[in-house]
C-alpha cells in the first residue's frame, strides 16, 4: 500500500469536491447572468493606440491616461478602458454603435499651449511650402504692445495692423510639426482657406497651469470663459501675461488658435491675475464651452499621434465570435470522439474531465470579466483556450500511456494507476511549468493581442495542473482499484489493451 497516492476516502472527497465546485460555480455564474467581458474583435468597438510625439516621462503619461479617461467617460459610454502599454496609451471602447463619433471626440488629442502672437499673415499661396524656420515679422507688421497702442478706455487697439505678406509663401504648420518650442503659423478657429493666419512664438505656458475652466455669460449676456490656475501655474501665468501686457496671447489647441485675447486692455498698468481670469471675445455658447472643456480636460502634457486605429462593427464581431466558438466546439467534439475510440472507458474520463475544466474556466473567465484585472476575451484569447485543449488532453494522454506501460510490464491495473500517476504527474508538472513560464513571459513583455493569448493560455495551464491532481488522479485511481478484474468493453483494462490479448 506504500505505492498508493491517496486513501480511498481522501480520493472520493477530492473528486466530489472538485465536481461540486466546478459545476456549482458555473451554476452561480449563470444564475447571476455573468458572462465574459468580450474583446473588441468579438463585441465590436473602437480601439486606438496613441504614441507621444515627443519623449514623455512616466508621470506625464499617467496624466495623459487620467485626462483621456475623463474624456471617454464624459461621452457616456460604458466599459471604456484607457491604459498604458509600455510607452503607448491604449484606448478601447467596446460595444459602441457609432464608432466614428467616439473616435472624433477621443481622437482630439488636445494639447493646450499659450503662445505670443507675433503678427498676422495672409492665407497661404497655392505654391506655399513648409519652412524649416519661420523668419521674424517685419517691424511695421509686428503685433507688439507699442504697435497696437491699446486704448484703455475702449479696450481696443488704436492701430489696425495689417497682415505681413512675407509669409504668404509659407504653408501652415502641420500638426506633427507643431512643437511647443518652435515658431509656427496656425489658423484661427473656424477659419476658411481665405482667412488670415497667426504667426506665433514658442509656447510660454501649457495647459498644465490651468486648474479648471467654465463657460459663463457675463452681465451683458456675452459668452466668456472663466478659468482658475493651479498654485504653481498662477505665478507662471502672471509672468507670461506681464511680458505680453497689451499684446495678444494665443490659446492654441491642437494646431488651431481658439482665441487670441488682448491682455488686460482696460488697464493702464499690469496687475496680477491672482490665479484666475476671464477670456472674452466673439464666443458662441458652443465655442465657449468647447474652449472651457479643452482648457480643463484637454490639457495633455504631450501631443499624441495615433499609431493604429481600429473599429470593429458589432455584426462582424458577432460573426467572428460564432465562427471561433463553432471551430472550437467542432474540434472539441472530434477530440472527444477520438479519445473515446482510442481509450474506451478512459476516454470517458477525458470527456468528464474536460467538462469539469470547461465549467470552471467559464466561471473564472466570467468572474474575471467583472474585474479590471483581466484582459477582455478576444479572438486571441479564444485561440489560447483552443490551444489549451491540446495541453489539457495531453496530460491525460501522458498518464494513460504510462498506464499502458505499467500494464505491459505485467502489473495489475490496481497497482498501475498509482505508479503510473506518480511518473505522469512529474511529466505533467514539468511540461506545464514550461507552458506557464511562456505564458507569464509573453503576458509581461508582449503587446496587443498576444497578451490576451498569453493570459488565457496561462489560466488554462494552471487549471490543467489543478484538474490533474484533484480530478484525474482520484477518478482514475478509484476506477482502477474497483474494476481491475472486469473484462467489459468499458473497463480500464480494455482501454489500456494490455493483459487482455492473451485470454
Amino acid at each position: 500500500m506504500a505505492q498508493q497516492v491517496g486513501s480511498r476516502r481522501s480520493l472520493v472527497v477530492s473528486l466530489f469536491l472538485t465536481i461540486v465546485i466546478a459545476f456549482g460555480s458555473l451554476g452561480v455564474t449563470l444564475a447571476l447572468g455573468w458572462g465574459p467581458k468580450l474583446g473588441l474583435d468579438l463585441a465590436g468597438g473602437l480601439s486606438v493606440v496613441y504614441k507621444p510625439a515627443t519623449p514623455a516621462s512616466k508621470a506625464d503619461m499617467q496624466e495623459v491616461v487620467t485626462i483621456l479617461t475623463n474624456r471617454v467617460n464624459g461621452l457616456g459610454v460604458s466599459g471604456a478602458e484607457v491604459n498604458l502599454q509600455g510607452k503607448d496609451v491604449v484606448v478601447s471602447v467596446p460595444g459602441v454603435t457609432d464608432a466614428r463619433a467616439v473616435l472624433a471626440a477621443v481622437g482630439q488629442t488636445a494639447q493646450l499651449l499659450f503662445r505670443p502672437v507675433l503678427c498676422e499673415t495672409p492665407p497661404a499661396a497655392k505654391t506655399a511650402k513648409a519652412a524649416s524656420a519661420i523668419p521674424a515679422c517685419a517691424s511695421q507688421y509686428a503685433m507688439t504692445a507699442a504697435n497696437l497702442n491699446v486704448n484703455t478706455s475702449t479696450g481696443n487697439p488704436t492701430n489696425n495692423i495689417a497682415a505681413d505678406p512675407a509669409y504668404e509663401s509659407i504653408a501652415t504648420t502641420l500638426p506633427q510639426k507643431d512643437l511647443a518650442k518652435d515658431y509656427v503659423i496656425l489658423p484661427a478657429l473656424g477659419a476658411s482657406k481665405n482667412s488670415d493666419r497667426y504667426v506665433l512664438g514658442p509656447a510660454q505656458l501649457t495647459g498644465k497651469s490651468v486648474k479648471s475652466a467654465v463657460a459663463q455669460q457675463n452681465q451683458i449676456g456675452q459668452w466668456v470663459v472663466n478659468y482658475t490656475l493651479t498654485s504653481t501655474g498662477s505665478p507662471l501665468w502672471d509672468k507670461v501675461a506681464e511680458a505680453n501686457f497689451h499684446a495678444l496671447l494665443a490659446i492654441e489647441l491642437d494646431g488651431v488658435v481658439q482665441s487670441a485675447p488682448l491682455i488686460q486692455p482696460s488697464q493702464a498698468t499690469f496687475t496680477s491675475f491672482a490665479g484666475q481670469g476671464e477670456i472674452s471675445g466673439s464666443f458662441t455658447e458652443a465655442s465657449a464651452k468647447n474652449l472651457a472643456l479643452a482648457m480643463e480636460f484637454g490639457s495633455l502634457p504631450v501631443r499624441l499621434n495615433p499609431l493604429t486605429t481600429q473599429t470593429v462593427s458589432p455584426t462582424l464581431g458577432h460573426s467572428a465570435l460564432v465562427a471561433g466558438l463553432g471551430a472550437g466546439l467542432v474540434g472539441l467534439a472530434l477530440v472527444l470522439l477520438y479519445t473515446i475510440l482510442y481509450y474506451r472507458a478512459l476516454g470517458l474520463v477525458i470527456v468528464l474531465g474536460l467538462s469539469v475544466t470547461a465549467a470552471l474556466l467559464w466561471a473564472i473567465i466570467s468572474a474575471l470579466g467583472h474585474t479590471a484585472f483581466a484582459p477582455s476575451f478576444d479572438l486571441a484569447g479564444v485561440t489560447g483556450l483552443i490551444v489549451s485543449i491540446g495541453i489539457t488532453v495531453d496530460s491525460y494522454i501522458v498518464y494513460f500511456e504510462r498506464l499502458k506501460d505499467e500494464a505491459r510490464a505485467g502489473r495489475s491495473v490496481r497497482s498501475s494507476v498509482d505508479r503510473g500517476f506518480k511518473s505522469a504527474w512529474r511529466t505533467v508538472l514539468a511540461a506545464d511549468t514550461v507552458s506557464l513560464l511562456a505564458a507569464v513571459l509573453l503576458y509581461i513583455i508582449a503587446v496587443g493581442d498576444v497578451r490576451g493569448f498569453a493570459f488565457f493560455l496561462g489560466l488554462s495551464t494552471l487549471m490543467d495542473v489543478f484538474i490533474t491532481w484533484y480530478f484525474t488522479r482520484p477518478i482514475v485511481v478509484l476506477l482502477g482499484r474497483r474494476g481491475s478484474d472486469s473484462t467489459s468493453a468499458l473497463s480500464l483494462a480494455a482501454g489500456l489493451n494490455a493483459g487482455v490479448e492473451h485470454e
Partner: protein
Amino acid sequence: MSNEEKAPNRFQRLYRGLTTIDFVGRRRTWFTMSLVVILLGLGSLGVRGFNFGIDFKGGDSWEVLAPNTTIAAMTHAVENAGLSLPTVEKLGSSTYEITADLNSLSATKQLSVTNAVVDAMAKVAHVNPNQVSTSSVGPTWGSQITDRALEALIIFFIAVVGYISIRFEPKMAVAAFVAMVHDLLVTVGVYSLFGLQISPDTVIAILTILGYSLYDTVVVFDRVRDNTGGVLKSGDVTYGEMVNLSMNQTLARSINTSLVAILPVF
C-alpha cells in the same frame, strides 16, 4: 503476454508502444530531411522575403459584411471614394476586405478618405456606416510590435534553457533550444514559401508552435531521464539505445497529442 505470436501490424505496435524505429541510428537521415526543408525556406526568405500584413508595414483596411455584391462593384465604389490601387478581397462567403495605404497623406486627409470609403462601402452593402470595420496602422507600429515579440522570444528562450538545465541537464537544454529554433525556421520558411501573409495572428500561431514543440520535448526528455536513471552505470546499454527506447515509448503519445492539437484547427 506473448504478443509476438499474432505478429501485430504497424498500428497495433504503435498502440502498444512496441515500435522499434531506430531514431538515433538513422539520425543522419532525419538531419538531412530537416536541413533540406530549412534551406528551402531560408532560400525563399532570401529571394521572396515575407508577405507582411498591414499591421507590420502600416496601412489601412476596411471590412464589411455584404452578401449581395461583387468584388467589381466594391472596387468601383472605393475607387470613386478616393482610393488608388486598393486591394479588394472576399473573405469567407460574404465579407469584403479592402486594403490600401494612406500613410503618405496628411492626418486630416486620411480621416476624410477613410470616412468616404466607409460611406461608399456601406452604400454598396446597403448597411449603416457603423457596420463597416476599419483599421488604420501607422508606419512605425509594426516595427514596435515586432521588436516586442522578438524581445519576448529571446527572454523566453533564455528562461526555457535555464529551466531545462536545472530540471534536466544542460545538454538537454541545448537540444530543446535547437529543437525550438528548428521548428521556428521550418515555420518561417513555410510562410515565406507559400507567400502566406504575416499578421499578429501569425505571431500567435508561431508562439503556439514553439509552445507545443517545447512541451513535446519536455515530455520526451522526462522519459529519457526516467529510463537512463541508474541503468547506464551497468554498462549494458548505451545512452543512444535508451533514447531510442524512450522515443518509441512516447511515440504514441506524441502522435496522439499532435492529432488532438490539429483536430480543433480544422
